[in-house]
């Protein structure tokens, strides 16, 4: 019998609640003209509204989906429905000796490394390196040009004062942000756009805005002084400015092998751009890693991954003085393993850990933290995490799942995983009697 995710884990991969409903509806045999499986994949032909049935495949090892339906959602309801059917009625799947061509073609394509890009003339490694140096040099010049403008703009802002910031309006920030986009500094552009909402955020906005401006100033200064800084710090500066490393670039670096458990996930949306932060915990290394995925507008995330999944794989961390963000170099799903409860962080270690992170990289926005033996408490309208040493962490006032947290917690001492941004904690999962519960 092939190992598989549980129904709950499969449904956790659904891009939205309507997909949960639709995929459930498709998880019955009569919706399928054919459904079959072998050791590595399952496939089926779903009776849809069109003349021809949709052809659906699920790669079990990597939890990858393929379907001929026109849906923009990923995974689509057919892929999830077929996987759910498999989770509940594995025995009724046909086991043919050979899979059809449309299945083997896709699986072969997935397992074959991508061919190198075909170019009219194949440059040598040396030529490639030269091209890269020139490209990097051009970008640095462009960013430097933008930063000169930004310095003048910041000086003007501080000279005139922040008092009128609440009346500046979005356009004020957006104009300089657009200039930064032109200068190929999208990270700075994002920070500037975020500042527009700080001025309207109510209490203590002056301090918050000054803090953000000061961090931006530090970033500019760091960029200008990059020649004298350690390579990891320069990498952090470049990341904060908006340089990105591609998966292919990172895959050339050695990674960290481990059994990685997905211990938390959070999706945030801003200006129709959805960012999904998936937190992994290495069973052997006890390292915490962050996978970032993005989807714009109605699109859904390409890579399906959900809390409580365990993957055996190699992670490569992005360069930086505080390695946290990573990418999966290679992996297979480990459906047999479960999260184990060996979290041993404390509230004090969260604070110390954050201080260490800031010391390494002042632009770190948040860190993933696993804390054991904490209780939830309510003080007025505020929620807190506290422990037997009378240490406490405030929970974000924007957090909407506190009642769910309290309900699972039951006033007991438990392990919690979440994000800490230096001011407030955002709970994502609880370890309840050894079982990860996503909040």
């Amino acid at each position, binding site marked *: 019998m092939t190992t598989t995710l549980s129904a709950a884990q499969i449904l956790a991969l659904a891009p939205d609640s309507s997909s949960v409903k639709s995929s459930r509806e498709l998880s019955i045999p009569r919706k399928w003209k054919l459904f079959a499986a072998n050791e590595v994949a399952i496939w089926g032909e779903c009776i849809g509204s069109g003349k021809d049935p949709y052809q659906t495949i699920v790669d079990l090892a990597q939890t990858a989906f393929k379907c001929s339906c026109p849906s923009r959602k990923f995974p689509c309801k057919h892929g999830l429905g077929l996987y759910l059917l498999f989770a509940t009625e594995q025995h009724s799947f046909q086991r043919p000796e050979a899979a059809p061509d449309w299945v083997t073609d896709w699986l072969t394509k997935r397992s074959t490394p991508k061919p190198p890009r075909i170019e009219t003339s194949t440059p040598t490694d040396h030529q490639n390196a030269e091209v890269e140096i020139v490209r990097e040099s051009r970008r640095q010049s462009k960013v430097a040009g933008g930063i000169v403008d930004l310095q003048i703009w910041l000086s003007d802002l501080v000279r005139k004062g922040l008092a009128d910031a609440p009346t500046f309006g979005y356009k004020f920030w957006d104009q300089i942000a657009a200039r930064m986009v032109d200068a190929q500094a999208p990270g700075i552009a994002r920070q500037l756009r975020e500042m527009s909402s700080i001025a309207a955020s109510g209490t203590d906005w002056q301090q918050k805005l000054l803090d953000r401006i000061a961090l931006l100033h530090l970033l500019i200064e760091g960029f200008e002084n990059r020649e004298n800084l350690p390579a990891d710090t320069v990498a952090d500066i470049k990341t904060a400015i908006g340089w990105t490393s591609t998966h292919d670039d990172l895959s050339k670096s050695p990674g960290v092998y481990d059994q990685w458990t997905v211990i938390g996930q959070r999706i945030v949306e801003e200006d129709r751009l959805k960012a999904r932060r998936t937190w992994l915990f290495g069973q052997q290394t006890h390292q915490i890693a962050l996978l970032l995925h993005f989807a714009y507008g109605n699109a859904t995330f390409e890579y399906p991954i959900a809390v409580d999944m365990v993957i055996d794989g190699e992670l490569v961390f992005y360069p930086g003085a505080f390695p946290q963000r990573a990418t999966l170099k290679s992996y297979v799903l480990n459906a047999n393993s479960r999260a184990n409860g060996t979290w041993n962080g404390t509230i004090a270690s969260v604070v110390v850990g954050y*201080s260490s992170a*800031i010391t390494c990289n002042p632009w770190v926005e948040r860190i993933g933290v696993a804390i054991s033996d904490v209780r939830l*408490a309510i003080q007025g309208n505020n929620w807190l995490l506290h422990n037997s040493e009378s240490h406490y962490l405030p929970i974000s006032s924007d957090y909407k799942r506190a009642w769910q947290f309290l309900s699972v917690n039951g006033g007991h001492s438990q392990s919690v995983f979440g994000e800490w941004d230096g001011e407030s904690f955002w709970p994502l999962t609880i370890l309840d009697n050894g079982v990860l519960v996503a909040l």
Partner: protein
Amino acid sequence: MNRIDQERKKLVATAVLGTARSGPLPPDVEGIFRSSLTILSRENPEEQLLDEAALMINYRRAGMVVSIGSIDELPTASQESLPSCSPAAAELLKQILDGSYRDVLPEALDLFVGHQLRVPFLLLPDLLTVGARRPELRSQIVRVAGERGKWLAQFNKSWSYVGTASVDRTSEELVADWDTAKADDRLAIIHRLREMDSNLAVSLLIRSWKSETASNRQAMLSLLEPHLSSEDAPILEIAFVDKSVEVRREAVRLLSKLPLSIVRKKAIELAESSIQLKTRIFGGSEITLALPHAYDPEWSHYAIEETSYIKDIGDRAWWLVQWLGLVPPDYWSNKFGMTPSELLAAAQLSDWADALRLGWSKGAKLTNNHQWNYVLLKYWVTAADSRTSITNLVPRVGDLGPLAEALLSEILDAVSLPLHDRHPATALLRQYTGPWSEEFSRKVLANIERRSRLPKDPNQQIWLSVSLLREFAYRIPPTLASEPWFDVTRDDDEWMNWANAVNDFQNTLTFRQNLYRELES
């Protein structure tokens, strides 16, 4: 304020005012950042300020210390006595709470109660919030919320009903809750106490009767109906002279159900003096009436209205309807030795036939007399009476008890055309919320399937027939989910109108089937 806070305040003040107005940042006299700032040796006041602000934020963030304070610990929740449902069942319940198949919730709760399962902790907040909006589900919700649900509810005022609706709360605890409970919760207390200690519920009602609003007094009175007895007379007599006519009407209605009450006696006395049965020369019987010509002001104590609001029913006829409505119709069957059908036939010849039928209908509803309700509803359906003003007087399908399916089957069999929007069974089927028997479900589905094959008729709307299918998916036994009710491979023009509804129907039925399976496993 420590020196860091002072320096920070100075920085913010300068930044807000602007260096143009405030001048350069005053020197860092305490020397917190002096050495760092000296290295930078800036001359530009804006850069000086930004440098120090950057140092300040990192100094604060990197030097943050853990917060220590005395936090009030929450009590811990008790051990659960009921097991949680399976993860698969929890996922189905989550779908219901998230808004898909919302109408399955009462059935799902019954299944949880029946299988003695509790709802998983993570879903409790959403479930308790549903209970805050839907009082009719509270007793079931409290039963499936387990110990954790009761524990959780104490921290959220909108879930306070959990305490009062809780089955393990003693009568002493409920009485203690009474004075501080909200109106909804006081209703729940009366409801619970009524089952535990009927007289205690009545004494509580008497105690706070005057301080309740009229609508609350009426609602509390209604709660006495299930275990009504002569021991409730003290509160009914108080309500009988209430200043609110609605409360008086409810008191009169309940008093009329007590055989020895003054209301029952008065109603029989008045009705008997008006109604006579005569034997006709050519066979059969005929009911004749002698109605009062004037409204007696004393009747207002019995909440008898002077003026009729029913179309085609005059004031005198309306008085008869109201008095008859306070008499159990079996009284007349026994008095005249006739079946309900025979009495209805005898009334047919009277000038006051309509009033007699409405009065008996009201009385049959009041006493929940299935046989009378069956005969009367059959009459009203056959008569196709379209007066909306009599809707509240005429029995509903639910009043027929086990006879409901018999009547509906008769009507379905009697009409050759399958269900459509003007079919006499359509409205009744919509009223009949079930659960439906398998046999009856098959009959209805076969009828709708026949409807789906009829060619398009411009005189008949199709949307209602199609929507019936979606409604009925919640009433049909889920054991029928696997049967092929419709030929989904059809591609005729008519099928286009039905395909989506049939799909929804099958999905709902399958969802319910899954729910039953997962909760039984």
